[in-house]
């Protein structure tokens, strides 16, 4: 369903994605895991026609997003990592606008908006402007909106960031249901390893713009000789905190890993 080969994206001298390759099969739930700044969102932006790759190739349902953006856009839905709601519109209006943009017929639209807003406990606040919402409510609305139409491929970029456990549970139950009943292919990122372990069929771990491991949760634990996905993840990506300069020891570890491959 998605095939990525040697994908590269640079911003000036920052190399955000450095030769990434992976395959996502149709009907699969695929988790793309990595520390902050690893290149996950940049990859998703290239897959979803928001950015042009510097080099490398992407095919999504047989199509190249850079060459056929509109056809590719007809095939996916996305929940962005960053806010993308219109704060001046109400929750209902945000849903409605999305439904029109995605050509959801009016009857289905009205029905699904009610179902989803109720599911994420926003129905009572449907008439309030989104800028009056709390962070968690906005996040729930983003997710409800992302689920309004049923795409072939659903991208979820850290969808559960800032959500309470109840909403998280709703989300993953719903996503699994979509995957099982409608055969929706899911491409997700998350920092919560328990979520990835719970829903993902396969996982790719990305660090510093490169894929460092791929396989089922089971495979990754075996490859690293660890008990949990969390430990496997830390073993693969080091334990230093990102978004700060990488320290010497971590750099050594990175180098060592490069050599080993």
């Amino acid at each position: 369903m998605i095939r990525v080969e040697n994908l590269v994206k640079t911003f000036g001298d920052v190399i955000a994605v450095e030769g990434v390759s992976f395959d996502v099969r149709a009907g699969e739930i695929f988790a793309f895991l990595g520390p902050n700044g690893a290149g996950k969102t940049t990859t998703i932006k290239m897959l979803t026609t928001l950015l042009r790759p510097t080099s490398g190739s992407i095919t999504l349902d047989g199509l190249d997003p850079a060459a056929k953006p509109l056809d590719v856009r007809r095939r996916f839905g996305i929940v962005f990592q960053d806010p993308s709601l219109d704060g001046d519109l109400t929750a209902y209006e945000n849903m409605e606008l999305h439904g029109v943009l995605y050509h959801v017929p009016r009857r289905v639209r009205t029905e699904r908006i009610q179902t989803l807003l109720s599911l994420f406990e926003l129905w009572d606040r449907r008439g309030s402007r989104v800028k009056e919402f709390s962070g968690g409510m906005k996040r729930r609305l983003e997710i409800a909106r992302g689920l309004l139409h049923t795409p072939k491929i659903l991208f979820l970029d850290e969808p559960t960031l800032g959500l309470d456990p109840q909403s998280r549970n709703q989300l993953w139950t719903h996503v699994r249901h979509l995957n099982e009943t409608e055969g929706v292919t899911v491409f997700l990122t998350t920092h919560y390893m328990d979520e990835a372990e719970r829903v993902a069929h396969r996982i790719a771990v990305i660090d510093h713009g490169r894929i460092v491991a791929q396989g089922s949760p089971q495979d990754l634990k075996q490859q690293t000789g660890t008990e949990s996905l969390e430990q496997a993840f830390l073993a693969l990506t080091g334990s230093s905190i990102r978004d700060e300069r990488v320290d010497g020891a971590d750099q050594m570890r990175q180098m060592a890993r490069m050599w080993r491959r």
Partner: protein
Amino acid sequence: MAVVYILWLREVKKYLRSRPQILASLGQPLMYLLAMGFGLGPVFQKAGQGDYLQFIAPGVVGMAVLFTSIFSGIGLLWDRQFGFLKETLVAPVPRLQIMVGRTVGGATVAMIQGILVLTVCLIAGFRPHGLASVPLALLFMALIAVVFAALGTVIGSTLRDMQGFQLVMNFLVMPIFFLSGALFPLADLPPALAVATHLDPLSYGIDGLRGALIGQSHFGVAVDLAVLGSVAVCFLALGARAFSKIQI
């Protein structure tokens, strides 16, 4: 069509929900009208040019339409900042439709603002030379609105953040206003200024408004219509092109 309509509706709703801003944005034209209209009136009259309030009112209406439409286009920058732009850019809809919905929405808002300012002018004592002039005046307001909403779209698609905004304001929007003949007659200008006024699309808009409302026109209403219409087509094409190239 549904897509164009809902994006148009969004612009109009956002405008109608910002009542304090609507009031605030009436302040500037009002100040020009009163300070210049009444302040410079006697000088203007002595120079044998007639009633300055009559002369400046169409200019002030044009100014309101200019500012509102160009800012609506630049609203793209806010949508980029607050993230909503992404939502429309990944939708399975030709970007042209999105751009048209936004631009026509912005132009509509600018028209409403222009009509409000025209009403204020009427209250202040402006007297157009007949009701028949109103439809033509509305047509010119619409053309000005489309031209500059499209220009705003070009700018909003090209700038990446709010930093370029001040630059655009000082070196593009203000010159467009001041060189348009909104405040002074276009006849007998020094050559350099004459060239500049001829290059400014707003000159034709305000000249057309004057032609419609007070029956005084420098270029002739037909020329004004032709020039503005062509500029509108060009700017819409440029706006569509710039919008289709946005990356995030």
